[in-house]
């Protein structure tokens, strides 16, 4: 049981930045960016290769994040410059990145077991302690990413970003060009995705050119699972960020349990797909139940606000 828990945290926490990026793109702006598949892999490929070449860990990770931001920039330029929809632009970028990642690594897979990584200092510890220290390190990264994005969303630019996805007329009338916000959002999301990529390769001890396949779907599944728990209504930021954290862990819990039940790692794509479908289905059911509840509650609330409006109106009139 405790191994299920540690496995879940060790594999789930590195995904938090990825899911956070997907949350920014899909929930804050309602776009759909497939670049994250490629930027997750490029984070792993660039970070892994840098570590193999003896680049110190912080620099290797910074390089990986920069590569992800670069991938986001390509998609942004294709989208804004050529008018290609974000989804298609991201698909094109991801496809091209596959070849670039392969070129970067030289081989389809690179082992990091003998390299200096975030976790290599822990090898002297016994396995259980090593897991928990790894979890602590990964948790710090997850919380730092969540906290930074949470603060960003409360800034002037962040506020504009939160409005832009839902109300174009309003945001333009407030003097904001959406182009800049789209760019910021895509760069941020892909930088976060590649941060996840470089955390994962150090954690699992290897980088693989196919590691990005399906991560958008996985991240979306995680987000939906998290939202089942927290039910973020509108964009109350704290609940959204909590959904990201809980969702990433829950998603890995599902996969870990599937593996424990005797499924092979190649079955996990099916499990991910089923998780996503299940999360969609559950979200529908819960949303409907939530609406009924809200209607009952808001029936009373709107009645009372009607009263206050009108008594106040009468006083001022």
């Amino acid at each position, binding site marked *: 049981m405790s191994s299920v828990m540690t496995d879940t945290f060790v594999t789930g926490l590195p995904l938090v930045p990825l899911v956070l990026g997907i949350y920014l793109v899909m929930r804050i702006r309602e776009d759909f960016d497939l670049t994250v598949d490629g930027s997750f892999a490029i984070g792993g490929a660039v970070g892994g290769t840098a570590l193999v070449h003896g680049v110190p860990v912080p620099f290797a990770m910074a390089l990986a994040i920069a590569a992800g931001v670069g991938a986001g920039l390509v998609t942004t330029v294709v989208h804004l410059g050529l008018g290609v929809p974000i989804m298609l632009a991201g698909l094109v970028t991801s496809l091209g990145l596959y070849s670039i990642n392969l070129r970067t690594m030289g081989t389809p897979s690179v082992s990091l077991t003998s390299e200096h990584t975030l976790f290599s200092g822990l090898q002297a510890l016994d396995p259980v302690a090593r897991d928990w220290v790894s979890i602590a390190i990964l948790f710090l990264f997850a919380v730092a990413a969540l906290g930074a994005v949470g603060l*960003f969303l*409360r*800034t*002037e*630019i*962040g*506020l*504009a970003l*939160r*409005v832009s996805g*839902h*109300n174009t*007329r*309003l*945001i*333009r*009338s*407030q*003097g*904001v*060009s959406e182009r800049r916000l789209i760019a910021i959002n895509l760069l941020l999301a892909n930088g976060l995705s590649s941060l996840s990529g470089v955390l994962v390769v150090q954690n699992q001890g290897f980088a693989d050119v196919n590691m990005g396949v399906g991560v958008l779907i996985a991240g979306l599944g995680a987000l939906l699972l998290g939202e089942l728990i927290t039910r973020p*209504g*509108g*964009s*109350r930021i704290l609940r959204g960020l909590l959904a990201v954290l809980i969702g990433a862990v829950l998603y890995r819990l599902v996969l870990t349990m599937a593996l424990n039940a005797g499924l092979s790692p190649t079955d996990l794509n099916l499990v991910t797909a089923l998780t996503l479908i299940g999360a969609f289905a559950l979200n529908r059911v819960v949303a409907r139940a939530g609406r009924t509840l809200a209607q009952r509650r808001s029936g009373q*609330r*709107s009645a009372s*606000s*009607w009263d*206050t*409006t*009108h008594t*106040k*109106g009468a*006083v*001022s*009139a």
Partner: protein
Amino acid sequence: MLELNKVRLVHNQGTSTEVVALHDLSLKVDTGQFVTVVGANGAGKSSMIQVISGAARPTSGTVRIGGADVTLRPDFGRARQVARVFDDPRAGTAPELSIEENLALAMSRGRRRRLRFAVTRSRRSVMREHLKQLGLGLEERLSAPVALLSAGQRQSLTMIMAGLTQPDVLLLDEHLAALDPGTAQRVLALTVDLSAELSCTSVMITHNMEQAISVGDRLLVMGRGRVIADISGAEKASLTVPGLVSRITEAGAEASDRMMLSPRSG
């Protein structure tokens, strides 16, 4: 000062569905003047608002605000000069954001937005001052989501947002249309006060003839993309609703059902 010079707006130019929305429209409104605009559906009222706000670019002609030619500037590039209040109360505010966040959004209107906190203590006290004018108690509910507000409260909040940064032009596009009569009356009073306080140029579109006559110092009747009557002063004061409707029909525009029924929304 707002100046339209021979503004022509053509939709679907060169195709079989070509529509001339504005016909070489020329108009000069002085600073501080409050203009009401009436006209049948399709008369070009909203097209004129769009051209002034920058949401639509004229096919030909120029738009000047405060002496500067803004014809080629898109709407988000004119936000410092132009404040807009939409007909849909849901369009002017972001429901998922709190009252203070909506106000903060408007406080940065037309300025470069930066990576600093949008809602600060000093901004909150400015917000409270402005919200107190409404007498709705919103200053005590700064962190409540706007989704919880009624249509009238939201439209009042939008008015406050429009006045936070001193605009040169205030555009009111049927902003009372979705409100019940009592609330519309209150928001109209707020509109008149705000316009006077800002001493900016105000342009208000309305389908309510009584409002059009009683509010503001100048009344424009539009039809088929042109200004067909420009009434001010004593002539405006002596106008009656039937008289105005007959002027619209005489001038060749069709008085729509909606206009005939206008006292309903008043």
